[in-house]
Every structure is written in C-alpha cells, then in structure tokens.
C-alpha cells in the first residue's frame, strides 16, 4: 500500500435473492481477500447444504441466527484492500423491516451499491434503497444491474433499466449516479472486465471504486470543531497547558485563525494545533487534534469552536428527517436526550409534519404515529441551543440521535433539514 492510499466506505443493501452476498463474496474472492481457512469452511458448508461448487454468499453469514435463517439481520462490516485503496463494506439487509440497519450502514458511507436484478428491473426495493442513499446523502451511488447472464447480456435490457431508474431518481438528491452491467455469479464486470458485454464501455465495479474521486466528500469550507474533552496535563513540561481535544468535523483550521466558541460567543485566536508527533500549522477534517487558544476562555465538552467569519446559527427549534430505530413507538411530547456531535441536551418532538411512504416516496400527512423504521419530518424543540448545520451541507454537524432516558436506548436518528 502506498502512503497516499485512501479509505473508501461503501454500503450494500439487498435481500436474499438479488445477489448481494454473491457480489460481496465475488469482490473479496477475486481481490484475493478471502483466506484459505475461510474458503475451506465455506466449502464444507456448501457441501453440507448440497450446493454445487462453492457458494460465495455463505462468506457473509455472521451470527448463528443468520446462518440458520439464511438472512442478514444486522449490519456486518467487511474489509478488503487493493494496491489502490482500503475498503470497508457495510453489508446491510434489504428488507423494509430492516430500514434502520440500512440507515445505519449508510450513515458513514462514501458510496452506495444498489443492486437491480436485470430480469425484474426497478422494483419497490430499488426505490427504497435509492431513497435511503439520497436521504443519508451518500455522495456516490453505483447501480449494479446484476444477473446479466440471465438476460443474454442484452444491452437493450440494460438500457431499459437505466431509463426506469433515471425516471424516478430525478426526485432524489444524488449528484453522482453510475450504472454497471454485471454478473456477480460469473464475475462479469465485478473485478475483471466482462468478455460477454463488449457494448459496455465503462469500467468494472472494482476499478470504479478504486478511482472515484472522494476527497471532496467531506465539507472543506465550514470549519467546525466540536470539543470532546479538555486536556490539562499539569505536568512539569506542560504546567499551564489547556488543550481542547476533538476531531475536525469539517473545514480547516490554521494557526492565528480568528475563532468563536459556541454557544458562549467568546472569540480568540488559534495558538497551537498539537498532536503527539508534532505541532501543526493547519488541521483539516477528519483529523483528531488538540487546539490551544490565545485567551483563557471557559470551554468544555459540547462546545464548538468555529471560524468567526463562518458560524452555524445556534437554534432551539430544528426540523429534521427522523428515522425511528426502536420497537417502542415515539411518544408525542415526551422528553428525550438529544445528541449532536459532543453536545447533549433534552429535547421534545413538538410536531410531526408528515411521514414518508418509502416505497412510493409519497408524503402521508394523515398517519402520524411514528413506529420502528418510519421516516418522518418532525419539529424538535431543545432545552438549550444546538449549533447545527443542514445535513446536506455537513453530515457531521447536521446529524442527531435521540435517546430514551427511561431505557438508555438509541431510539431515533435525524438529519437536519
């Protein structure tokens, strides 16, 4: 691996029959990321189950219940590396009852792979997965039209699917959509270029993942630094050191930058940017650093340091697209803990504006019960101001979770509108 190799996180959503597991198995197998003892275990299981040859899909089985039921329930993370990049796959189930798991996998992804069965074209599930990718603002979407071997590698079928997809995708907010005709089962256009589809001029899937431009996926304009904790060594060498430790959520800090601390509003200048290895001239997202300021200001966890000429608007009333994650439905006007970066406050869902039907992408303003897997637009009121940006501008400072104080469970995830 070279020193400048990047990390790319992508998500796959799919259900039992659309070849998702086979695709992942193929990527791992053809990129030589499956070890012999793992392969041996899969071969043994394939034989036991009476499959012909090695069933690559078995590689993605995780927990005992999943093996027994033959389904993916929870998000599983897989890893592989090529000479160009390191990859993290968030492998998620595709069925509507697992929307929350898809949302979880999508939350950190640079790219989403959406699988379409060439025989069936765009179906409800395709729309659901695309909608989630758009809602979670995954920067790149790759639509893999799979099982091309079962439609005689037909260019016409491929073009029809693209037309269907583009027709409904015009309603979505995705900037970068690509299409690739593949056969995960036979390996066409996954790692190696297919010899069965000369009419396709684009790159195979792996090459696409290896080369797509992802440096701009993080907001580099709005400097946001949520303080995680304060470092006060009080050692002989650092007697008066007071460093604010955190991870740049977005943007860039340079020495001497004029900054404002929110919510207090005090201003100062950046004095040093420190790491164990060296002190830096500048820091950018997503670096973990410790910052000291010229002036002594009272700063603690939950505060946010931003550039004085580019501040988020602190607000107690926020509108979010809320995905409900828990079995217990939302309680109207009940109090929840709200987490936004390192900040925690109390919050109340004041109003449910509408609910989404994620299959038809239609708004339902009548039905206002929020249950597990529902996605709704809601108004939230917090006890103290939060320093939010819109999720479209900033995936880190535009996201929140709600925690039920009676159970301590995470019950919802929200994207600031």
């Amino acid at each position, binding site marked *: 691996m070279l020193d400048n190799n990047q990390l790319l996180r992508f998500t796959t959503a799919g259900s039992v029959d659309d070849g998702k597991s086979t695709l992942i198995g193929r990527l791992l197998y053809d990129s030589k990321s499956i070890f012999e003892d793992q392969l041996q275990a899969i071969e043994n299981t394939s034989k036991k189950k009476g499959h012909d040859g090695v069933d690559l899909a078995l590689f993605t089985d995780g927990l005992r219940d999943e093996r027994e039921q033959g389904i993916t329930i929870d998000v599983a993370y897989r890893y592989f590396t090529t000479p160009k990049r390191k990859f993290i796959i968030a492998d998620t189930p595709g069925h509507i009852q697992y929307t929350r798991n898809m949302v979880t996998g999508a939350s950190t992804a640079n790219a989403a792979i959406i699988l379409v069965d060439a025989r069936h074209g765009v179906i409800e599930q395709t729309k659901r997965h695309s909608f989630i990718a758009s809602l979670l603002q995954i920067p790149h979407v790759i639509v893999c039209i799979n099982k091309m071997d079962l439609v005689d590698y037909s260019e016409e079928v491929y073009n029809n699917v693209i037309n269907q997809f583009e027709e409904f995708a015009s309603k979505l907010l995705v900037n970068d959509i690509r299409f690739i005709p593949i056969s995960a089962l036979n390996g066409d256009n996954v790692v190696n270029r297919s010899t069965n589809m000369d009419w396709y001029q684009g790159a195979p899937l792996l090459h696409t993942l290896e080369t797509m431009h992802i440096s701009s996926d993080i907001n580099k304009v709005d400097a946001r630094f949520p303080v995680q904790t304060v470092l006060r060594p009080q050692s002989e060498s650092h007697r008066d050191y007071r460093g604010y430790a955190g991870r740049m959520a977005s943007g860039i800090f340079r020495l001497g930058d004029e900054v404002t601390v929110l919510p207090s509003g005090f201003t100062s200048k950046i004095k040093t940017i420190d790491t164990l290895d060296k002190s830096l001239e500048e820091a950018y997202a997503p670096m973990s650093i410790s910052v000291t300021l010229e002036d002594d200001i009272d700063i603690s966890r939950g505060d946010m340091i931003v550039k004085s000429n580019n501040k988020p608007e602190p607000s107690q009333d926020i509108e979010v697209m809320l995905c409900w994650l828990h079995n217990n439905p939302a309680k109207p006007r009940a109090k929840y803990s709200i987490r936004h970066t390192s900040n925690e406050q109390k919050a109340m869902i004041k109003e449910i504006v509408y609910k989404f039907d994620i299959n038809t992408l239609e708004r339902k303003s009548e039905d206002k019960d929020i249950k597990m897997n529902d996605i709704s637009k809601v108004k939230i009121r917090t006890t103290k101001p939060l320093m939010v940006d819109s999720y479209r501008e900033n995936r*880190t400072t535009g996201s929140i979770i709600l925690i039920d104080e009676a159970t301590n469970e995470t019950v919802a995830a929200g994207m600031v509108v």
Partner: protein
Amino acid sequence: MSRYYLNYLDELESEAIYVLREVWAQFDNPVILFSGGKDSILVTHLAKKAFYPAKIPFPLMHVDTGHNFPETIQFRDNIIKDLGVELIVGSVQESIDEGRVAEEKGKNATRNALQITTLLDAIESNKIDCAIGGGRRDEEKARAKERFFSHRDDFGQWDPKNQRPELWNIFNGKHFEGEHFRAFPISNWTEMDVWNYIKREHIAIPSLYFAHEREVVWRQDSWIPNSEFLVLEEHEEIVTKKIRFRTLGDITITGGIESDADTLEKIADEVSGMRQTERGNRSDDKRSESAMEDRKRQGYF
C-alpha cells in the same frame, strides 16, 4: 484542495483517537484491557496519542491466566513503567483457588473460557464501566457485528441481536448501574493495517512476534510451544524450529508458524502474502463454528 485528505492509516488513527476520547468523556472509570498482544499494545499507543500531552488517564487491566509466555509479562511490566499508569491484574488462578471456576479436563484443556469469570469479576470489583479492547471486526464473523460502543448487561452478557444502532460517529454509552460497555477503537483495522501501522510508528512489540528458535510440538495444524503446562501425547515429539507467532494468547493454545521474518518489514511482507487467517492458529476458535459468538455472548473479550 486535493492535498487535504488523509491516507487510510491516518484516517484509522484519527478514528481510534476519537473513540478513545469519547470513552474518556462518557464514562467514569474506563480501563484498557491489556493482554500483551499487538492489538492491545496498539490501542495503548493510540491512547497515548489521544491524551497527549497528558498521560493516559486510566489504568491498564490484564486478565492473567497464569499460562503466560514469560516474554509477555516482562513486556507488560516495562510498558506500565514507561507510561506511568496503574496496572490492574485479574487472576484466573485466584478464581480457581476461590472455587469460582473449575479447571477444564482432558488433553485440550485450556483456561481460555475461565477468563470470562475472572474478567467479569475484575470489572465488577473495580467498578469499571467501560473496558476498552483491541478487538477487530476482520478477526472473526461474530466480531464483524460489533459496535464501537458495545453494551453489556448486568451479567456482563452481549446480546448481538439487540444492539444499539450506531450512526455516524455519535456513540451512546449511557448505562445503568452494574452494566458496562466494551469499546473497540480499532474495529475497522485489519491485521495488515495493524502491521503497517506498527512498522510506520516503530511501536515496540514482544519478541515473540519475530522469528526465533523455539521448542515446539506439532498439534492441530500448528506449532504449539513447549512449556511446563504441555502434556505430550504418545505420538508427539518435541522439536526445535524457527517460528514466530501471529497472535498471542495463552502459551497452551497459541500456535506458531514457521518463519524467517525477524524484522517488522519482513513480517509485514509475510502477512501480506498469508493465505490463512491469523486466528487459524488459535485452537480456542476451532472448537465450533460459533465458538467466538458463544464466548462473546457470555462476556468474553
């Protein structure tokens, strides 16, 4: 603007530092679970970075099975002295002496499963609310489902089907008295990433990872080191081989591989060409298809 991006190792490092700081901010009494293996050494190194220029603000905890490689214990004691942090030891031997657990019987008996009781006892008696571990999701299929912040109930049990969803980088470590969390800062690292990083950062690791001459016996497809705990079968024979270890666990269950890799560069090269997973030499994982899941549910690392 193209130069404003991190390479994969820097991004993994930054993520791990972020997780460690979240642990410190969200819990009252965390510890690093320290086995003397490369992963817990790596986590300790990252903790040094996370809190610099302050020292690591919590203790290291070692669950001591009594079946150690002597090199591991020496290494542990040195690192504690270097860092100036407290060491907590949970002793499996004491758990046995107190009758909390019973030694396994038979030729493949190990103290691996016994550690669970000792670990949970140590967590309870020291009022630890978060134990930071070096577990990685690429190690094993049950571990692939782990969260960064992983909840354990008041019996120390993991419920993999009922985990808290973890979105973006917002971690929820809220818990009731008696419950605790496990935190895994290097969840997203692979074995190769660990070696590349150790090489880059010149992190000191026990000599056992480097190729060396050792008395071993061939058992369950790997070279098990000779020790006072080893009981030879009739057909088995002790030989001297040049070997090294890919993972370190108890001396009774950790198999070595034949190797000439005696520098970090050579190890990284060797690992990149490996066709077996690193836990393939651990007989504790070979017992059944869900051996790891079953132990983890009960409270294992």
